[in-house]
């Protein structure tokens, strides 16, 4: 399904108020957006679903401001990115806990991520921005230009995040003998 379908559904929704069209958009993007959050929250399925829900709600309220200057997908990821960082800021204010400990606690408590602990351990070697850039690039197949739009930073900064993240991750994988597994 292409960006053309997205634009058709957005038009249906904004002009006629057809909620079914918006439901189709949710159906198409629920998996990538929930996966994006699941990876950023190190496998916390419950938090990921809450954040995904908030993302779609914000998209619903602000869809009239979507000007099709970029793909709908990029626009939606931009909202998701902001929702995630708002939640990180809020959590930092209220919980003074060791984040990796909290993340590991949640990882073991949901079915999605039990087998992905290696993956999350590897991601935890990176800074949050590097994690985001790498997940968007390798997992969600976004280009550097799209990532720059999503993270609202210059393309050069994205390149740096990717380069640093790549180096750290590959070092970790080499140390953990990822190839031999």
């Amino acid at each position, binding site marked *: 399904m292409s960006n053309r*379908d997205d634009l*058709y559904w957005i038009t249906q929704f904004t002009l006629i108020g057809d*909620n079914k069209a*918006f*439901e189709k958009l*949710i*159906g198409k993007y*629920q*998996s990538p957006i*929930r*996966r994006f959050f*699941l990876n950023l929250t190190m496998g916390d399925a419950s938090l990921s*679903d809450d954040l*995904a*829900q908030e993302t*779609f*709600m914000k998209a*619903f*309220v602000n869809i009239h401001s979507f000007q099709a200057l970029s793909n709908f997908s990029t626009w939606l990821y931009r909202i998701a990115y902001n929702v995630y960082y708002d939640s990180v800021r809020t959590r930092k204010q209220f919980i003074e806990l060791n984040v990796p400990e909290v993340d590991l606690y949640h990882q073991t408590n949901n079915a*999605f991520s039990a087998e*992905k602990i290696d*993956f999350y351990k*590897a991601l935890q070697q990176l800074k949050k921005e590097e994690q985001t850039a*790498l*997940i968007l690039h*390798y*997992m969600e197949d976004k280009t550097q230009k799209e990532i720059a739009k999503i993270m609202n930073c210059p393309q050069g900064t994205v390149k740096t995040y990717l380069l640093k993240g*790549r180096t750290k*991750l*590959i070092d970790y*994988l080499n140390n953990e003998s*990822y*190839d031999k597994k």
Partner: protein
Amino acid sequence: MKVMTKNEKTEEKLKEFFKTYKTEIPDNGFSSKVMHQLPTEKDHSWIVWLIGAAGTSFLLFFYIHTGILLNFIENLMIMHFDTLLISTAVFPLICGIAILVWSKNEKTFFT
């Protein structure tokens, strides 16, 4: 056979690593749950219908009162049948063809 550089090997390794852990998450009622939680806007479409009905009533009253409507009906009576047919049929015909062409290109139009 092309020999891969160190960078290319790294890139391949990372792509493979992320691909291994890339999973599709089943909907399991997530979409409908979100749809139920969406903020509902009050339906103000009745205002459009009210203004439309008021405008039509006013125009109808005006046309009847000034005799324009009667004059129009008289003109219809003396108009040639073929002219009348063309003038009334051409517009919906063009619209019908346009919708058909568009719906053929856009497969989701009637679904």
